[in-house]
């Protein structure tokens, strides 16, 4: 763990999971492990990890080999690459998300039953009207 009063400038690497409660500027490389940025954590670095959980602030690109989760207190500005990304309610995110859930997930969606084209309206019971089709 990197405690709340600790500031690290440079590359953080190793062979165990990491919890950042302090500040890191540079790069975090823990490709086989979980990186968590706690609520007091402030990271200005690119992160490479198996999984990344963010409760604090991250400015930088994030690569998660399995998943990236931004919690309700998380604030991320950067680009994310991961098979799956989850934003919780209240999370703030600016940037891009590059996801590839794999063949099985994509096929599951493509085989899902379609939505009837005759469905219309809203939850207040008011109808919706298709106005026109210009081809």
């Amino acid at each position, binding site marked *: 763990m990197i405690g709340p009063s600790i500031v690290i400038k440079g590359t953080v690497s190793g062979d165990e999971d990491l919890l950042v409660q302090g500040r890191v500027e540079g790069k975090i490389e823990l490709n086989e492990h979980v990186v968590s940025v706690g609520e007091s954590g402030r990271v200005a670095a690119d992160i490479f990890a198996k999984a990344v959980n963010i409760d604090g602030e991250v400015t930088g690109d994030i690569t998660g080999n399995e998943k990236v989760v931004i919690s309700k207190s998380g604030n991320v500005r950067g680009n994310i690459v991961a098979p*799956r*990304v*989850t*934003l*919780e*309610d209240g*999370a*703030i*995110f*600016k*940037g*891009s*998300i*590059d*996801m*590839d*859930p794999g063949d099985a*997930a*994509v*096929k*599951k*969606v*493509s085989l899902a039953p*379609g*939505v*009837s*084209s005759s*469905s*219309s*309206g*809203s*939850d*207040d019971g*008011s109808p*919706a*009207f*298709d*106005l*026109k*089709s*210009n*081809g």
Partner: protein
Amino acid sequence: MTAKQTSKLLSSLFSRIDIEERLTVLHIGPALPETVEYFSNFRCKLFFVDLFSELPQSSDEEGAPSLEEQFAGLLDFPEGTKFDLCLFWDIFNFLDSIAIAAFLGELRPYVTSSTLAHGFAAYKRSTPQTGHLYGIADQGTVNIRPRGQLMSTYTPHAQNELKSRLDYFGISRSVLLPDSRLELLFSISQPGKLA
């Protein structure tokens, strides 16, 4: 609090997209959890640009960046990026005709003749501001959340006015919703203007 609204056009939109291919999506507005969750089922790259939080404004002040320069800074995507799908939810209600032209002008390099778009807009100028944020719950349902506060830059266009201001985009389908709002499907109507 999240309300749900049936969408007649999202299913139509996704039926026109090969979801087994990799998608590149532009989302204008803040990232909401349900939209990320929905697209997590696809091979895709999502670009979130929250124009609502940093809406470009024209200024007469000397040295102030032009609208084009402001949009260019906000729509600064990697070289070669081409969007399959753009989600314009409500943004045209907050841009005047000059800003729409600047926005579409800066978006032009990232659009192809097969780019599709979905959006919400006002049906007429008197349509009141709803202050909604939108997210995709599924192909037939849009989640609607309150934005928090109404924006002073609300300048809704009547449908015909908007249609005439969309440059290379055209409105291929529209559905009248409650509160005099529209759900819209856009496609490229004038591919010659993309060159």
